[in-house]
């Protein structure tokens, strides 16, 4: 197990290094001057030069790359070019919206899909199964931003129960903060739950067809015990892998829903930073997201190894 962990950790570092290089090179090639964007069309050349020097853009690409990586290694992520605040506080603020949102949608998706998928699997080709699969098909077909707009129309505009968007901040009380995240998390969870339901059903059906299930039933085990002891444990590996992917997506890919609900999340920070050529923010946010995906994959691998300790997953 230790060798496995060390091997994975090295792979993680390698992936992060490559990600940092790719991000830096792409941003360097991208046309656009952050100083010009900040000062606009009437700026004098001297003012532009002064701002470029202030932003550190007059250094060579290698100097800038080493400066960035050196800073990251010392846990110094630099200062945003546009907002003029430390990138680390920006990311922390955004994560305080994005992480709870991702976790809420994730829990919601799991809570909906696990029972629904198992329910459908145990009723294969019966009305219950068809209904569940029908719902999941609808869930897949509805884009999450459209579902979000629908939720706003009903709960914010018609019923006026909640705001149409925005985030009051955790210091306004957890109830207000969670309330603001409620509709977006439902909108995000919908399609994730639909995908996960299908995966749970398919994996469970596969397991039900296995010899060990037949053996378990043959030795007189009740259906409940078969489900809990044999099916659930074995079906979890593909489901877990998908869950890992989904969680990473919820953190990094919620930008459209964040826009619909105008939430100050990480996705919107990244999008805005790209438009504003706030290179410092883009670099660090992408690196953070890469680290997060790597970490989630690692966790999934470890969990999978724990669920099924046979050597094949230790490759």
């Amino acid at each position: 197990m230790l060798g496995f962990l060390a091997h994975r950790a090295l792979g993680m570092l390698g992936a992060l290094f490559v990600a940092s290089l790719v991000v830096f090179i792409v941003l360097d090639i991208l046309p656009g001057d952050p100083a010009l964007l900040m000062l606009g069309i009437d700026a004098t050349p001297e003012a532009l030069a002064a701002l470029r020097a202030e932003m550190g853009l007059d250094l060579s690409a290698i100097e800038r790359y080493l400066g960035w990586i050196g800073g990251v290694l010392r846990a110094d992520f630099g200062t945003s070019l546009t907002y003029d605040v430390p990138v680390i506080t920006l990311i922390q603020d955004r994560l305080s919206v994005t992480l709870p949102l991702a976790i809420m949608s994730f829990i919601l998706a799991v809570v909906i899909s696990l029972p629904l998928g198992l329910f459908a699997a145990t009723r294969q080709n019966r009305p219950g199964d068809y209904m569940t699969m029908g719902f999941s098909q609808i869930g897949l077909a509805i884009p999450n931003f459209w579902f979000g707009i629908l939720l706003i129309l009903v709960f914010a505009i018609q019923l006026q129960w909640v705001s149409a968007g925005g985030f009051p901040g955790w210091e306004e009380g957890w109830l207000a903060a969670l309330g603001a995240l409620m509709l977006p998390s439902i909108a995000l969870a919908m399609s994730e739950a639909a995908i996960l339901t299908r995966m749970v059903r398919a994996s469970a059906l596969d397991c039900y067809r296995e010899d060990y299930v037949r053996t378990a039933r043959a030795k007189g085990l009740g259906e409940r015990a078969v489900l809990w002891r044999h099916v659930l444990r074995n079906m979890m590996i593909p489901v877990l892998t998908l869950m890992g992917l989904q969680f990473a997506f919820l953190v990094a890919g919620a930008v459209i829903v964040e826009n619909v609900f105008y939430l100050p999340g990480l996705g919107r920070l990244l999008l805005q930073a790209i438009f504003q050529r706030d290179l410092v923010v883009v670099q660090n946010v992408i690196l953070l997201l890469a680290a997060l995906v790597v970490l989630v994959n690692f966790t999934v691998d470890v969990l999978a190894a724990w669920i099924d300790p046979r050597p094949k997953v230790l490759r």
Partner: protein
Amino acid sequence: MIKKNAGRWLCAAWATGAVLTVMLGAAGPTLAKDALNIGMGLEPPHLDPTAGAAAAIDEVVYANLFEGLTRIDETGTVRPGLASGWEISADRKTYTFTLRDGVSFHDGASFEASDVKYSFERAMAEDSTNAQKGLFEAIDSVSAPDDGTVVIALKRPEGNFLWNMGWGDAIIVDPASADGNKTNPIGTGPFKFERRVEGDRVQLTRNADYWGAAPAMASLTFKFIPDSSAQVAAVLAGDVDIFPNMGAPETLGQFEADPRFNVIIGTTEGETLLVMNQRRELFQDKRVRQAISHAVDKQAIVDGAMFGYGTPIGSHFAPHNAAYVDLTGVAAHDPEKAKQLLADAGHGEGLKLVMKLPPPRYARGGGEIIAAQLRAVGIEVEIVNVEWAQWLSDVFKGNHDFDFTIVSHTEPLDIGIYTRKEYYFGYDSAEFDAVMDEIKETADPEGRTALYGKAQQILADDAANVFLFQLAKTGVKSSKLSGTWENAPIQANDMTGASWQ
């Protein structure tokens, strides 16, 4: 057994849903009578108007938080600000400002003449990052003979000097707090900075020690909502009370019919142009520029891209300005004449040109329509969509790599850009430059009006660009709210006069 088990799971899921619904109900919005929520599409990068060109900075802090010696009001008139009055010397090269008494900054520091001297010298300094350094270009020296008086000596008479001092880029800051203004702005205005949640909002609260009349509102919250459907939802849900500049004009119809809201259609300083790159040999031929001007149907662009909001213009001047001359007839829509002019210039066989479009809808939507109109006279247009960052580096600066672009010039009274030789469209006219020089030396309003008329005429006759339309300000507000601006002579959301009925 399984059935029962699955049922229990489902029950748990639905129960969770029920709890969520209850929590939703608990977090309803509350609206105090003296609070105002203002919606904006673009978020300011930071809050220091002396270190950035973004209009969104001024739209939060101008007049509300920061003040200059003069201020510009809703009608575009220059009014006293931190200076209660001024005297202009006979040669119009010395301005003596009398400052208001008892003014203090939000951190308690008192406002004195030395602050004015510091602010202007900071803006003019070599390492200054002021986006409108040109406003101070005429200033020779600033002196503070006593705490209540500032004397500004100019290098030459500058007819617009008082107007220039009313810009957001010329606000007065305190030496002790100036460097922190990006994140913690300290001004002299009726509202002071409370907090900012980047990506979400900026909150200001009433300044109890304000020197002038206290504002009716106890707090202002600027909420940033980029997505146009989210903007509509936010207004309908009552999350924002006023949205001075809505993203999508086609959504205004639903507010017009609703008694809870007023639709505000005002004017802006945005002259929207189809710019022709006169560094290209092709566009140095006046006949080609005239042909393109005649090929474009301005009203069709206003109707098609802006849902009818906007006023066609014939030169680079705002129709609401007193010195405006209606020159829309100079380049009336006439495709036959356009074809003839192109043939005369030797391009009868047709042309293939590139149009680079920045993100705003007037550009992307207008560009499609113009491309179709130009196709009708034999000009094939290849449209290239670019982001602002790319537009600024490729079109505006750098190699000026474009044939056409569409952009709205939103700075007030900016006809002077046609004198700049290095400017991106490359217009060059000695006759025009002479008129603009004369304006700088002319103080009497009538003489200036006549000269501005002459300048407009030269640009129109020269087909310096295709002057499309004046950008409208299309917004929505609560019908219970009054005292807000209808027009936008400068880019600001002056909420000092706003009140609830």
